[in-house]
């Protein structure tokens, strides 16, 4: 008994160490964004918000923020709609060909994203499509819609399908069953899926990088500056992006908690 509890204590210490390590780089980014000097030296001599002011004043950054917000919003909505039906086919219905479908849906998740981004770039080029952030919407969907499908599928596996049959027996049409029975039962999973989709799109770099053409998202802008030479606007915008993502996540989780408390 003694030995086991020691092992347990070691394991939970390890757990908390890992969680702290996960957040260390974000702390470093936050600190670097508050240092006044052009190059980051720790300990910081003088704190200032001037890099935030410069970031807000930059038109390039404003454009990048808008592009990222629009991309995340559009991807979030389309991916979720696709995923609701995708998840019903994945988990709820038995149909011939389902086994293949289940593996095809997983394929883009089990795939290096940089290679997927390049393949899409080549494909858009071959089709002669203009590459703007609209192309990135499509690229993000290829990766994000399958992930959201899995999130919704977990919910779809969990509910009792006999209520749908009961509704049908009582004369409900297929659409009424979906609208009044299936969708409300799926809703908590759908909402987590939407949250996932928006946040994954917001933080994605490789797919945007290869497909957005002249449009620049926040992660792309940061990448350009990190390659081209450090400016403290990199941690400033990086930290803003972290805070924005964190806020969306917090609000989303609060809504989610309320949803799951309802009967």
């Amino acid at each position: 008994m003694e030995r086991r509890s020691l092992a347990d204590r070691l394991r939970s210490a390890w757990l908390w160490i890992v969680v702290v390590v996960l957040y260390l780089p974000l702390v470093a980014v936050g600190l670097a964004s508050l240092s006044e000097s052009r190059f980051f030296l720790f300990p910081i001599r003088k704190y200032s918000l001037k890099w935030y002011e410069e970031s807000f004043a930059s038109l390039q950054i404003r454009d990048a923020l808008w592009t990222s917000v629009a991309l995340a919003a559009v991807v979030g909505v389309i991916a979720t709609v696709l995923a609701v039906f995708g998840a019903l086919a994945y988990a709820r219905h038995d149909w011939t060909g389902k086994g293949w479908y289940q593996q095809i849906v997983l394929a883009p998740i089990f795939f290096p994203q940089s290679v997927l981004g390049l393949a899409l770039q080549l494909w858009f080029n071959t089709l002669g499509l203009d590459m703007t952030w609209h192309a990135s919407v499509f690229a993000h969907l290829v990766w994000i819609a399958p992930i959201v499908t899995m999130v919704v599928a977990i919910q779809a596996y969990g509910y009792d399908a006999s209520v749908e049959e009961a509704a049908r027996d009582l004369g409900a049409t297929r659409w009424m069953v979906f609208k009044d029975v299936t969708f409300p039962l799926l809703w908590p999973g759908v909402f987590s899926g939407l949250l996932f989709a928006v946040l994954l799109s917001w933080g994605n770099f490789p797919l945007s990088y290869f497909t957005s053409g002249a449009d620049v998202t926040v992660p792309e802008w940061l990448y350009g500056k990190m390659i081209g030479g450090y400016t403290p606007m990199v941690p400033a915008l990086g930290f803003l992006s972290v805070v924005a993502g964190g806020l969306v996540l917090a609000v989303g989780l609060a809504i989610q908690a309320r949803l799951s408390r309802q009967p």
Partner: protein
Amino acid sequence: MTDLSETLPASAASARPSEAPARPAWRPSTGLLCALPMLLLLGLGFLAPLLIVAVYSFMPRGTFSLTSAPTFENYVDIVAQNFHISFLWSIWLALLTTVILMAVCWPLAVSIKKLSPSRALLLTVLIVAPLFVAENIRLQGWSLFLDRAGLLDGGLKATVGLSTGSLTANVPVVVFGMVYIYLPFMLFPMMLGLANVPPAALEAAQDLGASRWQQFRDIELPLAAPGLVIGALLVFVISLGAFSESKFLGKGVIVTVSEDIESAFTFGQNWPRGSALSVLVIVLAGAAAFFGLRRLDLDSMLGRK
């Protein structure tokens, strides 16, 4: 997964009429109807681009169209011009990352399983959240932490007078960066796998005198194996495409295959070579995913009741 679906291609299988007489006739078609938008997206956005890459890889060097006669010269070039070195580096780094993450994540998954549901949820959220931050921001953070006069070096110098110098620009820090970035992809499938281990089985084994090691080897490991396999595959395949880690933490000590692919498409202006390198990655990733996933029952993994 039905027997039928394993032996028939998707299109042929879906064209088959329903064969379960007890079910209402519309049900199978509902499944296919629901799947259609997703199949369309993945056909146009995944399969078609990969096919185009495969075709480009057989075009002569430096061409930008698909009309030339096919050739193997790009594949010959990969070895002749030593591009296979970056490919081997990527495989090695991906393998290392996978093995290290298995060891790092197992105790995490075990201890999360023992937490109360609300605490487990809190930890899950804490571990998922960094995934939503672009990886170049997080790697920049590590660079600020580990560089000369960064948080670690500067902090130590100011407090105890020690200096670590710069800890970036080496191979171990690249591996560290990859382990850091891909941790959730190992941990969550592992947690799913461990959820299949009933606590009663462990208690029974313990009562019968099994050591902690025997419990791990004979009960936990086999029952959690599907989750482990998924986690390992996911990490291996995704990290094959890693390039930010070597760029921002390794500062160029090594070049990964993704970086070579990217430069073939950009500075190199040699799409066929980039495509040939991509095909190698796609084949390796595809083979790993296909053989690994084929053995798993996805329905029961995700909690079909």
